[in-house]
């Protein structure tokens, strides 16, 4: 009875998002090294270097220094890896860190079992780069298994009676089906062009990011305000996120069936406006938040995505410019990349027992990400510099992750600064 009472109480407080309220139970596994003490730690320790290395590898592949034919379809597989390969890591960090907080009954996922799941992810990456030798089926099985495990881990979210965060689970299931469809297409079992499936997948990823960012925003901004003793509450209103999600879904579906249609142009502009509308939540009634670096960082994610959809829409309505896939990089390299970086930074501070801090490194990381995105996205306007922009934008894009290694790796391999387990 008593235990149930405290559990109920903690359950209620779970919504209040206090930095110390990360979980109700911590597993009593012995000799857990710090880098396996919480879900996000190994993910970030692997993801940051992987993003740098894979960018270098892609640079070498594109310039012909090394020969990986990728079943004769490099571009498609490049897009696949940048979407799905990274997604599984990001979702892994987000779920294993967020779920015990959102649902205090969930026991943190740590130690040996965490290590095995991470090894599955690494195996998925290796099988991707060796796909011409090991075959598409092995890559498919390993990568689908990773995503399936994540959905299994998140099943409580979908089955939750109140359905508070169920949308995340549904989005993941959709992404799983899209990934399976993609592999079926690449293995010759489905007729839809793989690239078309990836475009739908991008839409689904954007939806997932919008849903996840609503939670990250709530946690980060309220944590920040508590820290700075700003007496107000920030609420990321669901209707705004839902409008953006709806617009993105309509855009994605119409793009699949009618890729050149002029109505799609208007839908792109609509998605741009709807995503930008999310930032109006930062306008609190009494307090001014826009001078807080983290508000600017997080808002930039929405701005970049909005610019991407806006330019794509403008491109479709304008006969003089053909750059839709370049403009799409405002969504991928920009919005998607920055969302990952912000999740890595926010969790890297808060969940290692530190205050959400901004300094010259975090400024630089965000700024370089924006610069890299703009360099990549404006190629249609500066066609004479195309190859330089390709090369330098991908180099600049990796620097934030190098800075991340420098600033955050010491935190990730050490126990929490406030002495709490995890």
């Amino acid at each position, binding site marked *: 009875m008593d235990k149930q009472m405290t559990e109920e109480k903690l359950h209620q407080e779970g919504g209040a998002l206090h930095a110390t309220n990360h979980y109700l139970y911590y597993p009593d596994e012995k000799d857990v090294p710090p880098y396996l003490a919480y879900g996000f730690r190994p993910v970030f320790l692997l993801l940051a270097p992987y993003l740098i290395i894979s960018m270098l590898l892609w640079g070498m592949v594109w310039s012909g220094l090394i020969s990986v034919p990728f079943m004769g379809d490099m571009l498609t597989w490049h897009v696949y890896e940048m979407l799905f390969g990274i997604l599984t890591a990001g979702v892994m960090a987000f779920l294993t860190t967020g779920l015990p907080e959102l649902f205090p009954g969930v026991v943190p996922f740590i130690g040996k079992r965490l290590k095995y799941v991470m090894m599955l992810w690494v195996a998925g990456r290796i099988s991707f780069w060796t796909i011409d030798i090991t075959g598409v089926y092995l890559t498919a099985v390993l990568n689908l298994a990773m995503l399936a495990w994540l959905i299994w881990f998140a099943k409580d979210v979908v089955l939750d009676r109140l359905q508070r965060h169920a949308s995340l689970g549904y989005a993941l299931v959709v992404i799983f089906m899209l990934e399976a469809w993609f592999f079926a297409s690449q293995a010759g079992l489905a007729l839809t062009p793989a690239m078309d499936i990836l475009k739908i997948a991008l839409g689904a990823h954007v939806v997932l990011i919008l849903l996840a960012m609503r939670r990250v925003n709530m946690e980060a901004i309220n944590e920040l305000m508590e820290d700075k003793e700003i007496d107000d509450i920030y609420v990321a209103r669901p209707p705004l996120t839902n409008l953006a999600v709806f617009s993105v879904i309509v855009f994605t579906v119409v793009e699949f069936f009618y890729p050149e249609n002029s109505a799609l142009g*208007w839908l792109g502009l*609509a998605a741009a*406006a*709807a995503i930008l509308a999310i930032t109006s939540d930062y306008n609190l009634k009494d307090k001014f938040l826009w001078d807080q670096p983290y508000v600017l960082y997080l808002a930039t994610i929405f701005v970049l995505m909005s610019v991407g959809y806006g330019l794509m829409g403008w491109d479709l309505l304008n006969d003089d410019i053909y750059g839709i896939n370049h403009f799409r990089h405002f969504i991928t390299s920009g919005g998607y990349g920055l969302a990952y970086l912000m999740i890595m930074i926010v969790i890297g501070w808060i969940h290692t027992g530190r205050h959400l801090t901004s300094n010259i490194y975090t400024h630089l990381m965000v700024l370089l990400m924006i610069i890299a995105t703009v360099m990549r996205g404006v190629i249609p306007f500066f066609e004479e510099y195309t190859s330089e922009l390709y090369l330098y934008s991908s180099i600049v894009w990796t620097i934030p992750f190098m800075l991340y290694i420098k600033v955050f790796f010491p935190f990730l391999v050490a126990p929490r600064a406030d002495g709490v387990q995890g």
Partner: protein
Amino acid sequence: MNSLLKILKDFPAYLWSGWGAIASILLFIAFWDAGNQIYGDLVLPSPLETFKTLMSMLQDESVITEIKVTLYRASMGFGISLLFGSALGLIAGFFATASMMSRPIVTILVGMPPIAWIVLAMIWFGMGDETVIFTVVVASFPIIFVGALQGTRTLDGDLKEMADSFGLPWHMKFFDVYFPHIFSYVFPAWVSGLGMAWKIVIMAELLATSDGMGASLAVARSQLDTPTALALVVIMIGSLMFIEYIILEPIKREVELWRS
């Protein structure tokens, strides 16, 4: 003065919150574009073509002249309704007998279809400015009158008593007790009156005059010039939305703030 400053201070945030509205308008335009692809250019021109027509129209001197004519008629009609509707409504609100008497008359005014008023006005005043202005007055006057009447009818007697017992000077009584209450009723009535005036003026012009935007619409109809007709509609809706959401709504929010 303070509230004016507050309106200006909140204005950027208010403006920024409009992105959601813009998104739904753009979704609607996409829907319109789909309609164009199904029914063809003659029935429903594409949004892009309409906006291009609109742009070229706005650079045309004669179109600007037509817009000015319409603006003159609408603002005259609305101005008269505003002045007399507010004044008479406020006075009527102070007297129970007057408000009882005026109610059925207002019902008659509101209940009579504007199109019937136009026919009568055409007989009385002929084809010209007066007909249009009269119709606008007849349509928007009752709305403003009722709003003003409600404003004074619903004044809180207890507050008045309190103000009296504290011996407030008349200007404080007026600006701090009566004015916020009355204004919060009168102002929304002005907003709806304006919307009504803007719609009626086009209709009256279409039937009763040879100039103004309504008349241009009639010409576009007879020439089957759908892009011009739609561009005119866009001008009408656009200007109404601008006045309502950019100018009036922020004031309305500030005025109605005390209610919640």
